[in-house]
């Protein structure tokens, strides 16, 4: 398979000079911006993105052009946010975009801002990516100096300011309302929807939040056209997708492939299969928050939104975690439940308490202190968290928990020793404060 043919987003990945404006310009960079500003109306840009079928690549998969269309036409002030708070375990693609090719995201952001009539754009980068904040800032400075940002861009009359904003360590800020609240100078706790940010977001004004990969796809669509973009992928899952692959495969890394290719082909042809001595046990395809697939389930799916939904999981962020046969699934879910417990923002009780309970129940199972009814209790706690919170974080913990329990139940059951006297204990893990 010729891996270079299908590259839209990753042409400069791995190159030493791809982040420089001069290199980007010499490879058709900022041509799309020129075209959009001189030959297209904002509405035409939105329509093109809509027709291209570009869906949000951060996790939800919502059509980007449709989201843009929710901004009221008569809004006096609109804000645009590029979400680079990449924190979903297993995901590291946006980092590649911004590290190797920051101008593609910047160009995409300028075009997107033109489409929704935003004059202030934030690129929100997670704080842990300290070097990346500096790198993107330098690229933004270059774009200002070249006249792609600032006042009267390319003589079009369109003005845009761009601010690189550094996060400070909070998974929840990847949720769009959490991200907006964070830039407003508050805790990154999500707000209830509706109103949706496209109607009332940053400072109460219409605000669009799009993932880096989504934004980076825009220049190609505008420059090459809708049909060119649609030659990749399927009818409903158009275009290419960046997959971040981690775990003991021969070649982990970030891969761009058209949506819809079979996992089996991707696994053997791109990832080279498992490292010597390991066998495939399970795959978490879309970042840690999506339901796990067993090896045999994974071998039967195609990598697109619809096929993965049909298989009972989600494409999510494309953070693919490969789990080997040697892995202890209960230990892995303990690691994940610790993460959600740690990252719950704390404002909704089902999430704040529920994530902690799940973590503590799994932990006591692993300590040999579990009883049979703990397995049902895990399910009950999950049910008490689902759909009852402001944002999807609670559900993001429930999806892996329930699927691990369902598909690998014998591993949980093996930890329960009928003969172990447990002594007086609370059904709920209230007393176990140690974490």
């Amino acid at each position, binding site marked *: 398979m010729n891996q270079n043919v299908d590259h839209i987003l990753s042409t400069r990945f791995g190159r030493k000079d791809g982040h420089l404006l001069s290199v980007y310009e010499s490879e058709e960079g900022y041509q799309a911006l020129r075209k959009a500003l001189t030959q297209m109306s904002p509405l035409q840009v939105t329509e093109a993105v809509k027709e291209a079928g570009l869906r949000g690549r951060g996790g939800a998969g919502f059509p980007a052009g449709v989201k843009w269309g929710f901004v009221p036409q008569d809004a006096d002030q609109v804000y645009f946010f590029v979400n680079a708070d990449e924190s979903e375990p297993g995901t590291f693609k946006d980092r590649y975009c911004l590290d190797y090719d920051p101008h593609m995201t910047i160009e995409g952001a300028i075009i997107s801002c033109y489409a929704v009539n935003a004059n202030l754009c934030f690129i929100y980068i997670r704080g842990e990516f300290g070097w990346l904040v500096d790198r993107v800032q330098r690229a933004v400075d270059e774009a200002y100096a070249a006249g792609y940002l600032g006042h009267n861009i390319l003589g079009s009359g369109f003005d845009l300011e761009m601010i690189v904003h550094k996060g400070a*360590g909070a998974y929840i800020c990847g949720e769009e309302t959490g991200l907006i609240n964070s830039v407003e100078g508050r805790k990154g706790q999500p707000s209830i929807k509706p109103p949706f940010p496209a109607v009332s977001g940053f400072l109460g004004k219409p605000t669009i939040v799009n993932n880096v990969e989504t934004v980076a796809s825009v220049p190609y669509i505008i420059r090459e056209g809708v049909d060119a973009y649609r030659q990749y992928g399927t009818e409903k899952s158009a275009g290419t997708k960046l997959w971040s692959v981690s775990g003991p495969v021969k070649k982990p890394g970030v891969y761009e492939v058209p949506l819809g290719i079979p996992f089996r082909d991707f696994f053997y042809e791109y990832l080279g299969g498992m490292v010597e001595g390991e066998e495939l046990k399970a795959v978490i395809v879309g970042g840690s928050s999506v339901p796990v697939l067993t090896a045999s389930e994974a071998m039967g799916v195609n990598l697109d939104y619809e096929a993965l939904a049909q298989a009972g999981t989600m494409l999510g962020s494309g953070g693919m975690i490969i789990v080997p046969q040697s892995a202890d699934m209960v230990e892995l879910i303990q690691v994940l439940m610790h993460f959600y417990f740690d990252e719950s923002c704390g404002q909704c009780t089902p999430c704040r308490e529920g994530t902690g309970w799940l973590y503590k129940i799994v932990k006591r199972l692993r300590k040999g202190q579990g009883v049979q009814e703990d397995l049902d209790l895990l399910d009950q706690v999950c049910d008490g968290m689902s759909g009852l919170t402001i944002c999807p974080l609670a559900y993001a913990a429930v999806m892996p928990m329930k699927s691990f329990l369902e598909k690998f139940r014998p591993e949980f059951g093996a930890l329960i020793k009928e003969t172990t006297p447990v002594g007086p204990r609370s059904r709920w893990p209230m007393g176990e404060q140690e974490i």
Partner: protein
Amino acid sequence: MNKPTEVQAEFSFSGQLQAQFQHIVERYPTRESALMPSLWLIQEEYGYVPPLAVDWLVENLGVSHARVWELLSFYTMFRSEPQAKYVLQVCHNISCHLMGARSIIAHLEKRLGIRLGEKTPDGKFALEGAECLGACGHGPVMQLGKHFYEYLTTEKVDQILESLKKDIVPRADTDRELEE
């Protein structure tokens, strides 16, 4: 109103820092929205956000003490106490875990003579666990300052520690500036 003098005695807000602060305030649409970048400005200069700097921000941004402390306590990267010279943060989330993060942490604990979450008595090293750092395909991964050390092995950890003990910060895997 003698607090600004105290602040200056504590960390002498330099002219350059003042200018950077003004630049932030001019660019951000509200004073509150300028709070997070201002906290970063202070922390990157002093290694943490001293209580007197909080007072200074309250005065200069017109926000409440509660608001500043809210951010300091909510965001894990903001520190309100002096930190060890080298804070090593090892990712222990799922992908790094699968690639051996636990043995890297155990090795660091042994070499530094401290447990996860502790600081060496000389204040030089601190060892912390981190949730997913976004370097999953490069694991195991450790963060130091603005950079990541990736594909860690016990040998690589030893080399990094030896170098840091001599106060030479080894080039990180994410530091590609020299390639330019």
